[in-house]
């Protein structure tokens, strides 16, 4: 009961009109920043921290959390409408989100993304309220071997993303791993595949690769005469149909689970959550065959997972003082600047502020929906621009987006290069999603493998001796073998009447 009381006090503190205005402003500013290409939540929050420095601690943290949600959602808007992810975590949303736009269902996609974010964020925050401490400790059980095993499960979802040919999926996956190797070796510091170019020491920028591979290559692949990029939606199609709602619900549930679980693990990022959620939809959704062609599940799952991850990642911050993801680390910086040290002492020393912030997480999630669902109409009106002009605008957007990642023209060339690569892959009918999956998971997998083997001093049995990692590895193997063993649902169940 204590917790409930304190939470209610927190709501009382967060619901003052000043704090509500801060939350609202934060959501609005965040959304606008998110829509700007290249600037994701990390840069967005970091840019706006100075604005909040002279405010009182509660108000400023509330505003920053709101900015954080806003930017994450703003990134989705460009993914869906313009096929240009505003940030890494919404990259995978471009696949089905933009396909929905082309079918004239942009409004539905954006609404579902907003609702999914709300659901994921709210449930994760409930988890924070109900069981922060045990959940935080749970995250610590995941050491390097378990992390590696989890990555094996992630990579195994490549099977689900394969489409027609497994060989082609593996080619795509290997390509992603290869690209992820470019840059300085994280342990020994030796340059790999940099061909003596300083620019490549950092590796290639993920957002530039994604924009090129998904966005640019698609525009390049339009054939002459195929001038219509997208259909402008009619008013009615702004809202999802009842069928779309029904189909989204299980995806949101899966997305919440995946995002929440991964959020507890220090070192995971929002893009891993959204990618694995997409993989899970491909593998387990009833309508998995439609994924990639504008299925609402491909938006609902990743967007929910992304936001559930963002909110769950606050649990290690509040309970252990560990910033579990880059954005959280920026928030942690803001806490420190306000004289608040995140960690268990926050609740003993500044209990009122801590609970007000938690209350504001609920409010921020809600405000985001209230702000953005009515704005969906405004955003989608961008599609009324005639197709040739819109295509040019999208191209412009992509170039600016790639440029603003590091303010470097090099990234623009990376984007164009990967656009051409994407075009070639499309012609060869090699699926693009496996490449993105391995590109994101590769570095995390390498890191955890090396750490594990240093712990065991070279003994591979460490992955099988530890129960959590053994179970995860078995699960990964099961997923890989499932097409062979026909472990999928019996045919009668697959033939859903709705499809």
């Amino acid at each position, binding site marked *: 009961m204590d917790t409930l009381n304190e939470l209610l006090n927190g709501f009382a503190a967060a619901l003052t009109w000043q704090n509500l205005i801060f939350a609202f402003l934060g959501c609005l500013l965040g959304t606008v920043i998110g829509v700007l290409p290249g600037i994701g939540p990390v840069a967005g929050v970091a840019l706006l921290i100075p604005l909040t420095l002279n405010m009182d601690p509660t108000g400023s943290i509330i505003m920053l959390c709101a900015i954080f949600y806003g930017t994450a959602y703003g990134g989705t808007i460009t993914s869906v409408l313009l096929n240009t992810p505003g940030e890494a975590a919404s990259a995978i949303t471009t696949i089905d989100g933009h396909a929905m736009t082309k079918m004239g269902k942009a409004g539905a996609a954006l609404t579902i993304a907003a609702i999914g974010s709300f659901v994921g964020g709210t449930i994760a925050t409930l988890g924070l309220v109900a069981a922060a401490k045990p959940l935080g400790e749970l995250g610590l059980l995941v050491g390097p071997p378990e992390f590696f095993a989890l990555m094996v499960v992630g990579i195994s979802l490549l099977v689900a993303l394969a489409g027609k040919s497994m060989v082609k999926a593996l080619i795509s996956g290997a390509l992603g791993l290869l690209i992820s190797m470019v840059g300085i070796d994280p342990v020994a510091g030796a340059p790999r595949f940099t061909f003596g170019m300083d620019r490549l020491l950092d590796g290639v920028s993920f957002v530039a690769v994604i924009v090129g591979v998904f966005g640019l290559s698609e525009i390049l692949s339009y054939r002459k005469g195929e001038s219509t990029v997208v259909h402008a939606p009619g008013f009615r199609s702004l809202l999802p149909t009842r069928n779309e709602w029904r189909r989204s619900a299980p995806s949101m549930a899966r997305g919440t689970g995946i995002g929440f679980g991964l959020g507890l693990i220090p070192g995971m990022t929002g893009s891993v959550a959204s990618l694995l959620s997409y993989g899970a939809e491909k593998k387990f959704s009833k309508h998995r065959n439609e994924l990639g062609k504008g299925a609402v599940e491909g938006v609902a799952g990743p967007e929910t997972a992304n936001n559930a991850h963002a909110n769950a990642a606050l649990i290690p911050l509040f309970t252990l003082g560990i910033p579990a993801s880059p954005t959280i680390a920026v928030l942690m910086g803001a806490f420190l600047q306000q004289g608040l040290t995140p960690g268990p002492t926050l609740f003993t020393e500044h209990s009122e502020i801590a609970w007000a912030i938690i209350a504001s997480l609920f409010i921020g999630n809600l405000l985001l929906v209230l702000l953005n669902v009515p704005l969906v109409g405004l955003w989608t009106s961008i599609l009324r621009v005639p197709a040739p002009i819109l295509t040019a605008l999208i191209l412009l957007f992509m170039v600016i987006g790639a440029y603003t990642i590091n303010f470097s023209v090099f990234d623009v060339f990376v984007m164009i290069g990967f656009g051409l690569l994407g075009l070639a892959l499309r012609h060869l009918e090699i699926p693009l999603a496996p490449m993105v999956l391995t590109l994101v998971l590769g570095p995390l997998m390498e890191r955890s493998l*090396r750490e594990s083997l240093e712990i065991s001093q070279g003994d591979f049995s460490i992955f099988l001796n530890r129960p959590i990692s053994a179970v995860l590895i078995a699960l990964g193997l099961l997923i890989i073998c499932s097409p062979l063993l026909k472990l999928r649902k019996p045919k009668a169940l697959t033939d859903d009447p709705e499809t």
Partner: protein
Amino acid sequence: MSRKKVTAALAAAALLALTGCGANAGATSAAGEDFPKKGKTIDLVVAFSSGGAVDTAARLVQPVLEKELGTNVEVINKPGAGGQIGYTQLTSAKPDGYTIGATGSPSVVVSPLDPARGAKYTRSSFQPLGRQVIDPAVIAVQPDSPYKTLKELLDAAKAKPKSMTASATGLQTGEHFALAQIQETTGAEFAPVHFSEGASQATTAFLGKHVDILVANVSDVTDLTKQNKARVLGIMTAERSPSLPDVPTFKESGYDVEAGTARGYSAPAGLPDAVAKKLEAALQKAIEDPEVVKKMNDLGLQTSYLSGKDYETFWAGQESDFKKVLPMVQKKD
């Protein structure tokens, strides 16, 4: 809204965005008298992941710097390869004052010494602007560990070399040097596990009991000790730290080991004098700001300011020290 109006509005927005970029890429004046231009962001490159001690210090200094310089200062994290990625980015930036970076030893001192690392910079690629802190290394065990004193721990490690894992943050990082110095002086050998993303990741693994020994800096363990989540057995410095008054030094326990990290801020070499002066003055203000010093203290970090020139001398001294033990921390396999 009519179709034309929307198109016009979009075109205007695109134009606006483009001009914005143009301003950002604009040329700087050679003398740097007008540094910093209002509205032009100064990047503060942190070569370690966010949340670690280097990052936190930079984020505390950043608002005061903004006030002093009158423009935006953005902390940018470029973690990996024990700082080498971030330092490469820093030293390859244009020396116009709009890119500065946090520089920490031993990483910044050591990485160019080993040709195998292929570092593209040397000490002379940096222009030191000021030192902020020195942060001694410590060794800690799990709270339920059977080892109550440093001697017990080191004797056990001597009896069974490499039987215990100890955290480090990459080859030739401060923790790795500390481990090598312990081995050199006392004969106790631990098996290093490198957490390349930095101290917060190493601490997380220690909290989850995935490594036995935490080798870190005072600042990393101050909070953990308060929460009784780590038992610090020794501090590698001449005097006890005010943040951990109960922890004996290695010297007190009979081992002559001193190791630790020093952190400050530098720019790429070749800064115009006027720019360097402005940055140095602003940094001194920020580092010695009473609020910042207090918050650093709360985090277990002792502020120890040195001017750019003195920081450079200190840096050179460290370089010659590290050269001596370097062979021990180079990759053998």
